[in-house]
């Protein structure tokens, strides 16, 4: 038996090569699925969102159910911003997501893991039952570090056992690059968060921190060696950085191109996507001072095509891969059309 193994391995490699060659020539035949995150606390889909979901995503949604944060007063973890379903969820393809702050695992004692697992699972089941959601998998989102790895992974292991569901975890780019240091979470699948790769910078010349080819390239060289099958999360959000006196004051998702194109308030600068305020005023609860710079960082269909192109060449072939767009609740439907999502997903 053991003598046969090397042969089998060769066979696999040959298959992989032929698949890659095949895929390169006809990306349209991709098997990947399209899905969306829904991250807002109030779950409410409008007609356009519902239509997009039906048309492109086969109604597949990753819904943030709640966050878990460390309470410094009681020294215990608690759920926060629990989702409030104002409309029913479409279909049966819902994956609940729990966002857990890394601080939770920094503070949590090993003895506290048990009850965190039990509490999290109970709350998930409760919310699902109440809202008639049937789910097969749970996704956990946590930017773990070396110091929290042990506690976090132990949490995941126990959650998988107790929930009897498939478990998924979000994976950040640095965790791919340094997988042997940061460890590979004990889950069934990972979701590669292919965004927020650059540092937020007050320098108007630095590239888009949400996605840029150069920063991405530094991380994805070893992607095909990652020890978990990977889904991919892509950004469909934008924000702008308010910069005053050379320092970032705040990042606002609510200040977008529509506001910044207002000629009465802003003028373009020599740097692309950087605007300068020409007056003092309030907008969306933000005070803008003359001379403030707004650096708009957007993800556009073109940019995502580029990201998909760059990423797909480094990923292992996986016919069950899901491309998850972040996120549907705040999605700007005038910038992204159904066709864009289909085309981008098809590149995988």
């Amino acid at each position: 038996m053991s003598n046969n193994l090397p042969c089998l391995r060769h066979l696999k490699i040959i298959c992989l090569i032929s698949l890659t060659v095949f895929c390169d020539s006809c990306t349209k035949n991709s098997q990947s699925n399209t899905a969306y995150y829904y991250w807002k606390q109030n779950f409410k889909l409008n007609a356009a969102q519902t239509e997009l979901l039906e048309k492109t995503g086969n109604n597949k949604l990753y819904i943030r159910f709640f966050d878990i944060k460390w309470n410094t007063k009681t020294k215990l973890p608690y759920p926060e911003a629990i989702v409030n379903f104002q409309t029913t969820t479409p279909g049966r393809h819902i994956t609940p997501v729990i966002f857990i702050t890394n601080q939770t695992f920094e503070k949590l004692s090993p003895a506290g893991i048990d009850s965190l697992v039990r509490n999290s699972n109970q709350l998930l089941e409760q919310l699902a039952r109440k809202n008639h959601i049937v789910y097969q998998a749970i996704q956990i989102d946590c930017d773990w570090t070396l110091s929290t790895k042990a506690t976090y992974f132990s949490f995941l292991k126990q959650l998988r056992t107790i929930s009897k569901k498939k478990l998924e975890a979000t994976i950040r780019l640095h965790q791919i690059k340094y997988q042997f240091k940061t460890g590979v979470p004990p889950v069934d699948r990972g979701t590669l968060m292919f965004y927020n790769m650059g540092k937020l910078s007050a320098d108007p010349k630095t590239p888009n921190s949400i996605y840029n080819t150069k920063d991405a390239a530094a991380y994805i060289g070893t992607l095909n060696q990652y020890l978990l099958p990977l889904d991919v999360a892509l950004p469909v959000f934008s924000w702008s950085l308010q910069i005053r006196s050379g320092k970032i004051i705040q990042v606002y998702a609510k200040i977008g191109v529509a506001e910044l194109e207002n000629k009465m308030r802003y003028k373009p600068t020599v740097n692309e996507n950087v605007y300068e305020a020409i007056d003092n005023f309030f907008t969306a609860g933000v005070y803008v001072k003359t001379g403030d710079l707004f650096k708009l960082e957007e993800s556009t269909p073109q940019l995502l095509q580029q990201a998909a192109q760059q990423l797909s060449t480094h990923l292992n072939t996986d016919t069950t891969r899901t491309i998850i767009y972040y996120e549907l609740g705040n999605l700007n439907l005038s910038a992204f059309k159904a066709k864009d999502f289909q085309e981008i997903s098809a590149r995988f």
Partner: protein
Amino acid sequence: MVSDWYSYFDKKVDSGILNHLLLKASAAGIDSAYQSNSLKADKKKLKAFFDYLSLAKSAEKFAATDVMYSWEPQPAVKPPVEFEASLVKSFKKSKDAFIKQRLWFQLVRYYYFSEKSDSTLLPEASKTLKTFEASKNSFPQNMMHYRTLGYVAGWHYQHKNYAVSNYLNSLCYNYSVEAKIPSEWSFHPQEEADWNKTLTLAKTNEERATLWHMLGINYDPLRAIGQIEALDPKSDKLDLLLARIINITEYHISGGNGLSSLDSAEKRELKQNTTAISNIALKNNTAKPYFWNLAAGYLNYLSHNYTAAKTFYQAAKPQLPPGDKLVMAQYQILDWVLYVKELKKIDPEVEAKMVAPLNWFADLKTGKDTISSLRFAYALDSSLHQIAGIYKKQGELVKANALENYTDFYIQNNNIEQMKTLLQKPNKTAFEKTMLRYYPFDLQDLYYHQAQVLAYQDKIDEAIAMMTKSESEGDKMLANPFTMRINDCHDCDHQRKQSKEIYSMDVLKTIQLMKSQIKKGTNVYENAILIANAFYNMSFYGNSRIFYSGEVMQSGGNTPFEIPIAFRSMLLSNKIAEKYYLIALRAAKTNEQKARCTFMASKCEKNESYNLVYTKPENSNGNEWTVTIEPVFYGAYFSILNNEYDNTKFYQEIIKECGYFKSYVNEH
């Protein structure tokens, strides 16, 4: 709140009891307090109070809730429907205006919480607004009125009527100090249109000034100052904003090196602020012109426009309120800092001028004089630094060191002698007396320091004489300084019980005795190796580092980097120890003894190889992380040990204990 009730009861109910009942007691606690009949006041008023309190405590269940963190689903907190009827009934029934106004507050607040979640409710259908409007003129416009108004502002905010909400909050803000924080927190203009509408709602210039003031403290103090100054230059709403501009500028500059620490944007902002504040100061039409002149002077000072700064300070001087100790002191500090900044050289005339301010600062520093809220430490330290700098340039090191003690001063014994002369001078000038108020040491500290230095030069007789003058026996050694070990282990030595207490002076006297015996040729090997051990242990590498502790050297810590560079070579050196190990070696009779001396000399030699790095001038401000210690250098003594004493027992011991030696042997 408590004081209102205290007056209501004509001061007959203790305010501590009221505080407890109003703010802490539970509903049951109130009941038993009432039943106990222990409060002595008007019976009718007491009944009204307890009736009201019972209602108010019930209202806290929905109005004064905290965020509940739990894994269990939490029921939404809603005001009970039936509560409305009891509040309305009590309100209608109440004849006591004091209580009635509070019931009105309770009702408005009840409606606010009832209507909070209904964002579609129109103002004309709101009971919150209706109840407020119906009785707002029936009561005095006191704190209770503004607390009630705060809920009306909140209602408008919840219903996205930001313009009105912000306007009402500004009225609350303006009412009293207590009302400032909650209303300031609730002030959130959303769009420019809201803000413009808020401004049109303001009925008087004072109301408009309050709005700009709130914009100023939250977002843009300079713009607000311009707007308020145009409305009413005498407005007291300007003061806090001006203070904020100064604070922001100081914040940018603090920790840095004055103007040069600002980036270009901060410099631009400083220039803008300086120009704007100077212009207002020049108009001389505010309520406190001295405040503006001082601020303009200070901003100009920070911008290095010293002439302009002086002009503003001079303009401020006759305007200052003589009775205001804090303002007068602030002026004095600003004036002094500018004076020092412009000094180029210091002669007796300047010194005479500095006597009074330096004495004043010394009084503040020592707590002889206190001025509440006055910050002076940074101004004083930076001015002393400047004066010391000028003295150094003029070659007057004693004066420089007296005002700002610095360790390099003590490298030259001559400097110390001059300092001692000054300390002992019988008829000191006024300036010398003032200057010495800043000098941290006394004559004995200097004698002690000189004794230490002499000891590290192996001038033991002189060291003993000097230590005697210091009137101190020094510190108690934490371990026996005459012992030796193959591997340095201070903790091991410190743990070992000592048969008798040894002080610095005892160390010196013992060395003195041993040296005299060597001179006579008595037990040379034994005496020399013990002296060598003592010098080794008195150095940084030994078990008796405490020997070099003292006021002047300030050399503590676990790494050589914590020893000031001025004393580092002296305290790190093992040269004298090595000299005595070699004396012992020459007097040694057996190979075991010789191996011992040679090995100890090799330790001195090895330490010197570290010292080369530690004492480099470029590493004077380095630390363990920034400085790389170069590899140990294997010197002559390892080779002698290996070639001549490899047949000794001691050789076997060091092979076992000393990794460096073992690697040497393996390599050779």
